[in-house]
């Protein structure tokens, strides 16, 4: 049962992934991405990573994608507005062929590498949670405490950076081009 669910979800994740790339409107891309993330979350759950599955939903779907959504709406890009006028295609035709070839190449390499790995069957007990909350917490505040603290600094720096970048300079409001350049 779980196996079948996994393969179905995998196929769905890949399909929605393609949707991200191929959707004309950014809005559709977002929605596809959301779908893909949900599928992945369930796959995590199936594989025994309950906490990760929750984090995936909360952080990715709940926070990051909403952020994307906000920006799209803020810039009013929902229907490709400005962008569509400038270019014939939403795809970069020159890079498209090379890019496709490259992506296929990478994909093939990934597949071959994975198939060559010759794993033993997984030892973990199916269905049992691998990432118990307590165990994860012990790891994070024990062995990885330094990285954890560094991560907090990274977050702080990100916050400062984002404010600095997105803030409108008040002084020379008349010229938006310059403004953007300095901001």
């Amino acid at each position, binding site marked *: 049962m779980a196996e079948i669910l996994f393969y179905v979800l995998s196929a769905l994740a890949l399909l929605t992934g393609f949707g991200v790339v191929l959707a004309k409107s950014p809005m559709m891309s977002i929605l596809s991405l959301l779908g893909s993330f949900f599928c992945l979350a369930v796959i995590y759950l199936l594989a025994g990573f309950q906490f990760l599955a929750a984090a995936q939903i909360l952080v990715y779907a709940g926070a990051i994608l909403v952020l994307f959504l906000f920006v799209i709406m803020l810039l009013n890009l929902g229907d490709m507005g400005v962008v569509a006028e400038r270019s014939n295609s939403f795809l*970069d035709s020159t*890079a498209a062929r*090379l*890019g496709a070839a490259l992506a296929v190449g*990478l994909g093939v*390499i990934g597949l*071959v*590498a994975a198939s060559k790995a010759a794993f033993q069957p997984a030892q973990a007990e199916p269905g049992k949670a691998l990432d118990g909350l307590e165990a994860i917490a012990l790891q994070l505040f024990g062995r990885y405490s330094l990285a954890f603290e560094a991560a907090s600094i990274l977050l702080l720096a990100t916050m400062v950076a984002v404010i600095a970048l997105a803030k409108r300079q008040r002084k020379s409001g008349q010229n938006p081009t310059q403004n953007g350049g300095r901001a």
Partner: protein
Amino acid sequence: MGGTWLLWFIPLLPLFGAAACGLIHFATLAAQKGDGSGKRPSALAPLVACAAIAGSLGLSIAAFKELAALPADARVIESAVWEWIHAGSLKLDISLVVDPLSAVMLLVVTGVGFLIHVYSAGYMKGDPGYAKFFAYLNLFVFSMLMLVLSSSLVGLFVGWEGVGLCSYLLIGFWYEKGWPAEAGQKAFIANRVGDASFLIGSFILIKLFGTLDMSDINAAVAGVASDPAKAWWLTVGALCLFGGCTGKSAQLPLFTWLPDAMAGPTPVSALIHAATMVTAGVYLVVRLNPVFAADPAVMTVIGTVGALTALIGGTSAIFQRDIKKVLAYSTVSQLGYMFLGLGSGAFASAIFHLVTHAFFKGLLFLGAGSVIHGMHDEQDMHKMGGLKHHMPKTFATFLAGAAALSGLPLLSGFFSKDEILAHTFAHGGFHQVLWGIGIVTAAITAYYTWRMVALTFFGKERFDHHHVHPHESPAVMWVPLAVLAVLSVFGGVLGLPPVFHVAHQLETWLEPVTAPGKALLAMHGTHTLSHAAEWALLGLGSVIALVFATLGFRAYVGGTARDENVERTKPALADFLVGAWKIDAKYYAVIVYPAKLVAFVTAVFVDQFAIDGLVNGAGGLATATGNRLKILVDGSLKSYALWIGAGAVLLAFLWMFV
């Protein structure tokens, strides 16, 4: 002189004097800047300087007395050791040694030096660099004393270069005029050429003996010379050291700086370029006499160089119009005599001539200085004449010096010069040819000396009476002249020839120093002269001196007509002789200008064009390649990502399939 540290004060007193005078000089400059009345501090300088030299002289005399009190074979006083350079097993230490040879030099340097200091107090009065002058003079005496007192060749070299430096500074003393500075530079560089040779010589000695202590070297020479493999090096080393002597003592091929050195103040010419510094080469040969005596070929080279230099110097003096140039070429010539004597193994005679030469040539230079001073800085003898009435004291003393230089019988120069010639003659073989050159030079010497006397003090007064008022110099100047005149006249008693049946005082005194060299020479045969031959040589010397002195005097007592006659009828000859056989001009054409050209070619073509061209070419290649590859960097985010991805794929393929 019980305390051996006391010996160090002989050179150090003048050094302190130099430092004090230097400070006085700067104090004077500061005072001048302040209120313009800056003369007062500089008046102290001669007192300080003379006191320093007088102190040295006193200590020297004390050292001499103590030395004389010792038994003849133990006459060495050594000072405490100054540990200078230690590098592994090599220890270059310097101590001061007073032995018979250095005692003689010590007395000459401090004695004549003191007189010249006193004289300078009068001569340089009023010069803006009054105190500086004494600083340099004292520094010179310090260096010269280091040179003669040092026990080690490297210590000697300290003094050797030090006197060169002072010579440079003093020749260029009146640097504002330009050419004195150039003359100083020329002197320093010519000396440097010799010094380079000296350095190589010292390396060879270290290689052979493992030390530079000269008494150790002298003691070990006999052993080294008997080893054929080392004897060859010893010969080369001796020649290299002699190369150093040719620079310092103005011998062929490096003598050309000395005539130019007359650009310095006259007391400098007297002290450095006549009495002391230029005799350093002679001192060195005598000091290391076994090293030179080990190979007779070296001795022959020394004698030949000496004889040729004597001849070239003498002939070049004949038609000079500048009184100091005459004396300069005469000095070159007389130094040649000393080396002629050294080449025949007459070490004591060379020192004897060195001493008498210091007296009479110092006297002549100072006399010339007195004349120049009295004539308001006129040096051209054609514009003098008849000065004996105006400056009688200078005239009288000058006459004594001239008589000694020309070797008139019974004066100091007569004995010392004839002793050298006698030894050369007695040495036999090729040296008799050299003797011939020597005797010709003696004739020439007598001729130009009396030409000079005649042109300067006799005949019509050829100067402009409206502008020039010849006057006698003050006592501070003529008293030293008188002292030197007495020494020039009676200096001969130091070394009377054997025919007088009196012991040769100087030779006996120097015996402990010269014995090892003589012993080495004796291995190749000894030479003595019969009394009859000696009488004959003395007679010949007297006759030649008297005859040519008379000729020279008679030719010029009436005026300058003779010179003008020669210039008119034989311009090439006059030009050749005045230009010192055109050797200096040759150097410029063959060495100096090509060197400058090579320097220019090196800097512009080799360095800028070739080497730097290659460097910049490498840079240019990189830039050109970069320009070609620039297309790849088109600024598009996509293409960068593409390249990164392509690289990743490539690496992954390599990792997986290779």
